[in-house]
């Protein structure tokens, strides 16, 4: 489309999916389209998800507008709001609308959304019968609420209950009529549905379950309802919320292939190559979606192809649901009705009003229903999408992620009932109220947007679950793409794709890799470059040339940057064992360089703080002379091996844990890993070296050595998993090397061992490190091959002049 003439794009549908596509398109090709939008409603694009808060009086319509009139003007978009399209003339590529309008198109986007299902029963056209779909419906409902008393909602699904709750808050007596035995049967099982019904009944709603409406009664307006069997109830207002149906009338009339919805391929193209479609009117791989996140994914893909980038595919979405009724916490995802091959895990605490059900098949999560405490919903949802093997966490999975401890958020668990003043992000001091307000004001829909705008969850990440829960509570639904998450905004590829491509395509430099995988930016960003550098280094030891420009500053200059721009220096102290001579040397060097703080670290090392960058090489030279090497306290690398004094001194010691720790540290130091890696060796089960919160921990016992993996003591305290028991020191070393190598080869960059093991499952680690002796030996050998190239002391090299430009100013003027 590189001619002077602009491409004429006509969009039918002025709702969230259609307009989001235009926004994505304008980001990519701001000047290449002449855009015309038809909207059936007389309003600009508004956030349909927020109709419920408007009905309940918590928000005003104005707050829900996503793109006001000026947005269309500013982007030269012709908007025909309130004009119905009457025909798509595919032969002549023209869209015809009311009032004789005929707009020609080069590309057409159909985003007609869905229509409420109006049951074909007598009385359906009576005044006082409304759907619940548009702002117009809501306004009519608000008027009716003022003038009449009794409302009946037909349909006890998500929409119906939100409508019922809203009308009840407007002061009406509300009854809900539902075909099934419990409300929201598509999202909840019978127990969860029962809890929900009880709660709503407490709030004044009345339920008529297992009832089929036969007729709406009344002569010139609604007076009541009659069920099959003859039972009648009075009503002044009837809301039809029996479901929605893709709005495909126009497409069908134009002979575009439709089934339940308009059928599209993975590029959101219909059977007519000039016509694309997104949103609720679409049927993709047999699936129709009614939630916002999938629509936005579709919008992104459609825009990409309209702009002729032709790079993305939509592969479907996994969705989860929340009910947007203030104070009710409910979550469901996946397939939660167990089949014959499935297992059910249940937790029910009636006094606390908590109910959880997880459905497992082949040790993987297939579905989840939660009521009352939904904080772990996103966690379960994530594992569902990752297809994590959960066999090792069965015992505690129902208690959620919280039971393993979380610092910085005060043990908070129930987002819905938290006050606005509650601090969510302890790192950046962001309260719940701020997050909710920003989500609404800035119209945010994703966790990434919440991070960018509020900074919550953007530092240590421990409040990510809370932020996701707040987002879900505020928006009403939360969903995400299937497991595959792009490495960063520079690419569509996930970590795993990149790792695989490196070995398969034998890619050996970052530029080669970016070219082969069609990176979108010329030289990546601060997120992807360090990851690529690590993956290449791990894949091609001795061959790959480390790219210092793709290293975070700490690893580039081999020291930790501090808040004032000075650095800290932490020499290696093998196994935490030192001597008066070593201490004296450190003391003298510290004094000579006027070190401002000397601090004992948690890993049994000595940290020297406040060193200016220019002074680093000189100080390192002195440390090297005194016999020290770099402690790598700055790297995603082996940090420390912490030990206790073991059998050499301790009256309880069973083995020489100190000597073993030193041996392990001599073997593993200098190795680069996906994230930092900590080891400890304790001489007896009293575990003074805290080996069970390390990435690799050894606990000595009388008969040998217990090996524990995957622990950490950071944001989320995670106790290690027991891997196995071995008899000899040589075995400990082999298992250690093999485990580290498995982690180095298969974890995603920036994953500690704990989340890595939670993702791949302990069974995977056991299989490679414990059960397969030949595989273990091969991993161990590859670890040694890689270590050949990583045990040159970086401090010594720099004291001798390597990378001198890193430490010196270019000029003084």
């Amino acid at each position, binding site marked *: 489309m590189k001619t002077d003439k602009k491409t004429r794009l006509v969009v039918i549908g002025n709702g969230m999916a259609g307009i989001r596509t235009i926004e994505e398109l304008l980001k990519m090709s701001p000047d290449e389209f002449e855009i015309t939008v038809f909207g059936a409603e007389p309003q600009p694009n508004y956030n349909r998800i927020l109709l419920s808060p408007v009905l309940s009086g918590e928000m005003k319509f104005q707050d829900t507008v996503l793109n006001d009139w000026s947005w269309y003007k500013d982007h030269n978009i012709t908007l025909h709001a309130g004009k119905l399209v009457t025909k798509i003339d595919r032969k002549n590529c023209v869209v015809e609308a009311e009032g004789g309008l005929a707009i020609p198109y080069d590309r057409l986007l159909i985003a007609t959304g869905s229509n409420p299902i109006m049951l074909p029963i007598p009385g359906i056209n009576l005044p006082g019968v409304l759907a619940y779909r548009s702002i117009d419906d809501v306004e009519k409902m608000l008027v009716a609420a003022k003038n009449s008393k009794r409302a009946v909602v037909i349909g006890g699904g998500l929409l119906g209950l939100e409508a019922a709750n809203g009308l009840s808050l407007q002061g009406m007596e509300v009854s809900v009529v539902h075909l099934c035995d419990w409300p929201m049967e598509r999202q909840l099982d019978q127990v969860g549905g029962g809890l929900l019904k009880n709660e709503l009944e407490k709030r004044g709603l009345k339920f008529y379950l297992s009832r089929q409406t036969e007729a709406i009664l009344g002569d010139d307006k609604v007076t009541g309802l009659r069920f099959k069997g003859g039972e009648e109830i009075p009503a002044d207002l009837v809301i039809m919320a029996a479901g929605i149906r893709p709005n495909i009338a126009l497409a069908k009339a134009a002979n575009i292939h439709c089934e339940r919805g308009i059928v599209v391929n993975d590029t959101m193209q219909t059977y007519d190559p000039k016509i694309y479609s997104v949103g609720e009117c679409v049927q993709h791989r047999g699936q129709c979606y009614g939630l916002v996140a999938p629509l936005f994914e579709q919008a992104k893909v459609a825009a990409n192809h309209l702009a002729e980038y032709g790079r993305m595919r939509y592969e479907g979405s996994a969705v989860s649901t929340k009910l947007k009724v203030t104070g009710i916490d409910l979550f469901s995802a996946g397939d939660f009705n167990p089949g014959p091959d499935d297992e059910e895990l249940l937790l029910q605490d009636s006094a606390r009003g908590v109910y959880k059900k997880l459905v497992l098949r082949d040790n993987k999560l297939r579905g989840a229903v939660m009521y009352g405490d939904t904080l772990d919903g996103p966690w379960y949802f994530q594992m569902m999408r990752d297809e994590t093997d959960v066999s090792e966490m069965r015992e505690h999975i129902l208690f959620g992620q919280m039971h393993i401890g979380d610092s910085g958020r005060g043990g908070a668990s129930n987002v819905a009932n938290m006050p606005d003043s509650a601090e969510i992000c302890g790192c950046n001091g962001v309260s719940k109220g701020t997050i909710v307000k920003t989500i609404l004001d800035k119209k945010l829909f994703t966790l990434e947007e919440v991070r960018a705008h509020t900074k919550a969850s953007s530092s240590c990440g421990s409040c990510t679950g809370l932020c996701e829960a707040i987002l879900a509570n505020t928006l009403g639904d939360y969903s995400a793409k299937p497991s595959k998450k792009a490495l960063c905004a520079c690419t569509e590829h996930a970590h795993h794709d990149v790792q695989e491509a490196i070995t398969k395509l034998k890619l050996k430099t970052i530029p080669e890799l970016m070219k082969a995988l069609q990176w979108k930016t010329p030289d990546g960003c*601060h997120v992807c470059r360090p990851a690529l550098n690590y993956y290449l280094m791990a894949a091609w030891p001795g061959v790959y040339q480390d790219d210092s420009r793709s290293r975070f500053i700490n690893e580039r200059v081999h020291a930790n940057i501090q808040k004032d721009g000075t650095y800290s220096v932490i020499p290696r102290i093998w196994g935490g064992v030192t001597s008066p001579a070593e201490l004296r040397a450190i003391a003298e060097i510290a004094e000579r360089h006027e070190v401002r703080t000397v601090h004992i670290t948690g890993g049994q090392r000595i940290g020297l703080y406040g060193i200016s960058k220019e002074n680093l090489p000189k100080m390192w030279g002195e440390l090297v002379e005194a016999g020290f090497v770099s402690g790598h306290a700055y790297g995603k690398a082996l940090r420390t091996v912490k030990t206790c004094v073991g059998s050499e001194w301790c009256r309880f010691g069973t083995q020489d844990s100190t000597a073993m720790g030193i041996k392990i540290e001599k073997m593993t130091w200098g190795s680069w890993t996906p994230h930092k890696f900590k080891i400890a060796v304790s001489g007896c089960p009293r575990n003074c070296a805290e080996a069970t919160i390390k990435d690799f921990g050894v606990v000595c016992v009388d008969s040998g050595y217990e090996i524990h993996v995957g622990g950490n003591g950071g944001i989320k305290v995670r106790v290690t998993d027991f891997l196995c028991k071995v008899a000899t020191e040589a075995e400990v070393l082999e298992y250690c090397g093999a485990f580290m190598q498995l982690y180095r080869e298969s974890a995603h960059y920036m994953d500690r061992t704990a989340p890595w093991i939670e993702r791949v499952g302990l069974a995977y680690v056991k299989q490679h490190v414990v059960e397969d002796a030949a595989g273990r030996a091969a991993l161990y050998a590859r670890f040694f091959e890689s270590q050949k190239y990583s045990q040159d002391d970086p401090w010594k090299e720099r004291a001798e002049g390597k990378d001198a430009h890193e430490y010196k100013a270019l000029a003084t003027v």
Partner: protein
Amino acid sequence: MNWIQIGNLEDIPRQGSRVVQTNDGEIALFRSVDDKVFALNNKCPHKGGPLSQGIVHGTRVTCPLHNWVIDLETGNAVAPDVGCAHRHEVRVAHGVVFLEVKAGACKAAA
């Protein structure tokens, strides 16, 4: 105009940065992957982090302290963050880098 000769283009690593000391503080010179050179105060508008130590990508640098991304062409933080690391005029002729230093420039922006 007060153009000062700083050094050679080759002295600045590609996708990297070098610092020039001035009486008013440090100026960071950046060299992009395609050899464009930019100059900003060596001070992130967020918490004063040394931008020269960040990862340079495209025509942007990421601050090493809290990952703010600063546009090298304007000195502005990339949205939604707001702030500016004052930029300085810089040019390269025959592989030699010249910088225009205005008195008080760094102070004013800091």
